[in-house]
């Protein structure tokens, strides 16, 4: 039932948002695209990290790997092929490292995933410089904004639908089991290693595909911009502020955060980060359960009114 609701909501959102390129202003479209990108990143991050409590900082790495797949394929691979391929490359990378590092816990896991991302970034820099004699790659004729927008929309919705489907499945239960008590989950017959690696790779797919889809907008793809650690940090921030164990939380948070940051940036061009920082602190202190807890509270009140 809940899965069906979520899928229906996705379908409606798709129908509403798809015509945007022909209806809204360029800026509104651009802002929507940013929102959708962070919806996709935050939801896919929460799908794994929210459920299992393995805090991954590898999002920037997945994003960058995806972006480099488009960069390398530019001119030979059509955009529609490069995007899923970018996702696949990121997923493969996640599966490979997941098998090695998913026995680390807590901050150790977080920092090693970050380190692996940096490792890939420097490896790409080194490889490109040594063999291709370049550092960045130019996307000489990028796809139209409408195309990029529609692809990002599709990816964001796919991420939400997948997250909903995972939550309703045995696989999702196993992930949640790992999160609440990994030992017990193992005792109960869950192949925790397989489940963790699978979940990590699935989440990576969306981050990679989004990287492949979005980075073409920047014309010039270089390690410093596509492996920008801030993409990863911001994703974690958004998902956790929303409530990483929920589905609606990260979505709401991605939209609120992107729009709010943008409004503040345009309104207070010199001091918006002070406002943003203060708001963030207040939110964490007085709404520790995240935005999702507002929704829960509201539902609870409805029921008990």
């Amino acid at each position, binding site marked *: 039932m809940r899965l069906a609701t979520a899928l229906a909501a996705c379908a409606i959102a798709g129908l509403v948002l798809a015509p945007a390129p022909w209806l809204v*202003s*360029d*800026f*509104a*479209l*651009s*802002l929507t695209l*940013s929102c959708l*990108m962070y919806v996709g990143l935050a939801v896919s991050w929460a799908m794994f990290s929210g459920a299992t409590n393995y805090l991954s900082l590898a999002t920037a790495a997945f994003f960058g790997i995806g972006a480099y797949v488009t960069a390398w394929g530019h001119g030979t691979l059509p955009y529609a092929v490069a995007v899923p391929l970018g996702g696949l490359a990121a997923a493969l990378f996640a599966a490979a490292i997941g098998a090695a590092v998913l026995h680390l816990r807590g901050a150790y896991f977080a920092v090693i995933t970050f380190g692996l991302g940096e490792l890939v970034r*420097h490896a790409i*820099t*080194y490889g490109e*410089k040594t063999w291709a*004699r*370049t*550092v*960045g790659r*130019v996307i*000489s004729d*990028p796809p139209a*904004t409408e195309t990029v927008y529609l692809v990002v929309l599709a990816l964001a919705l796919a991420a939400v639908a997948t997250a909903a489907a995972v939550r309703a499945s045995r696989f999702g239960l196993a992930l949640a089991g790992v999160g609440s008590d990994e030992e017990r989950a193992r005792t109960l017959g869950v192949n925790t290693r397989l489940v963790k690696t699978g979940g990590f790779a699935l989440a990576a797919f969306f981050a990679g595909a989004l990287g492949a889809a*979005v980075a073409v*907008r*920047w*014309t*010039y793809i*270089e390690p*410093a*911009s596509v492996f*920008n650690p*801030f993409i990863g940090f911001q994703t974690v921030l958004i998902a956790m502020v929303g409530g990483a164990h929920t589905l609606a939380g990260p979505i709401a948070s991605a939209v609120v955060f992107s729009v709010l940051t*943008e409004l503040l*940036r*345009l309104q207070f*061009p*010199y001091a*918006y*980060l002070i406002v943003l920082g203060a708001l963030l602190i207040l939110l964490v202190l007085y709404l520790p359960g995240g935005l999702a807890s507002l929704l829960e509270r509201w539902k609870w009140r409805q029921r008990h009114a």
Partner: protein
Amino acid sequence: MSIARFGGILSAVALAAACLPAAAQEAPVRIGYAIARTGPWAAGAQLTQEPNYIMWADQVNAAGGLNVKGRKRKVELVGFDDRSEAETVVRTYEKLMGSDKVDLILPPWGTGANFAVMPLIQKYGYPMIAPTATGRRLLGMKNPYFFAILQQPDRMMEALAEFLKARRVETAAVIHVDELFGLEQYTGLEAAFKEKGIRIIEKKTYPLGVKDLKPVLNDIKAKNPDAFIALSYPPDTFLVTAQAREIAFNPKAFYAAVGTAFPIYRDKLGPAVEGVMGLGTLNPKSSPAAKAYFDAHVAKHNKEPDRWASAHAWAALQVLEQAVAKVGLDRKALRDAIATGEFDTVIGKVRFKDGENVTTPGVVSQWQGREFEVVWPPDKATAPALFPKPAWR
């Protein structure tokens, strides 16, 4: 200083607003841009670029406004922080050109950000004259709306090769940063040295963000090259200087690329900078116009501009101003005017060919006392070169 800058914008806007009803003039000319005020690009952007925008708007408004084909109109800057992020650069320019439809735009800071704006300026048809974008790859995109006013890497490296050749330098050791900038500079240098018969006896590369280069410098010192050339970014420029001094590596010529032209380079390293060479275009002694520019900058912002790209940023605004005076705000006509015209600027005559500034020569500058003297080419020199470089102080 930031507060002063903020005040500057406010007063520019307020002035523009105040003049509106009184004279029943036309609406101000709105000029939009995104530039880094926070994040890793901010240090460069706030030294070299945005202070010039603000000072220009102030001067233009103080003189009664921008001459738009004979009619004076006030200027209103619409500037936003790009957070040192490519996506924010793209989004902001989509807003400025696509939604707000500002009259003109000014470029963001840095090669990466300029790349990101390339397809947009072509799509919306806004000419853009970039003072902090270098690279054949940018020009290779053949964007008719893009103009690079900074000297391209090969030109700067040819000047360096000529300078060294004239002083009978035979061997050189080179290090460069693993960035497009470092690679392009190196390609230019390699070709120029080959032509001039200067041997590169050692070449090393290093990643951005390096905190220690002493082992590399020690290895290079052991090979005893005549010249040492670091195709570096500001943090590494500071680092190699401090560490070469630390190990007393004192070749006849010591050259470091970006950052040597910054006043802070001299202030941070003190007397150690004596004799260090680097990328620069002019200094207050170059011409009366240059002197006036430096004085106005210090008066406005209470800090000196850098001695390389700052003046190019100012020159870009002068080109824009002269082109607008000639053809107005029709952007297609404006593009053609910029592409075909010749302009008098603080860096001398500027003319573009296929988007490249082809009149400003490659320059080598060198710290002597408190000034970054131009030492090559001879007709631009403001002082004779110190060669060989004196011992570290």
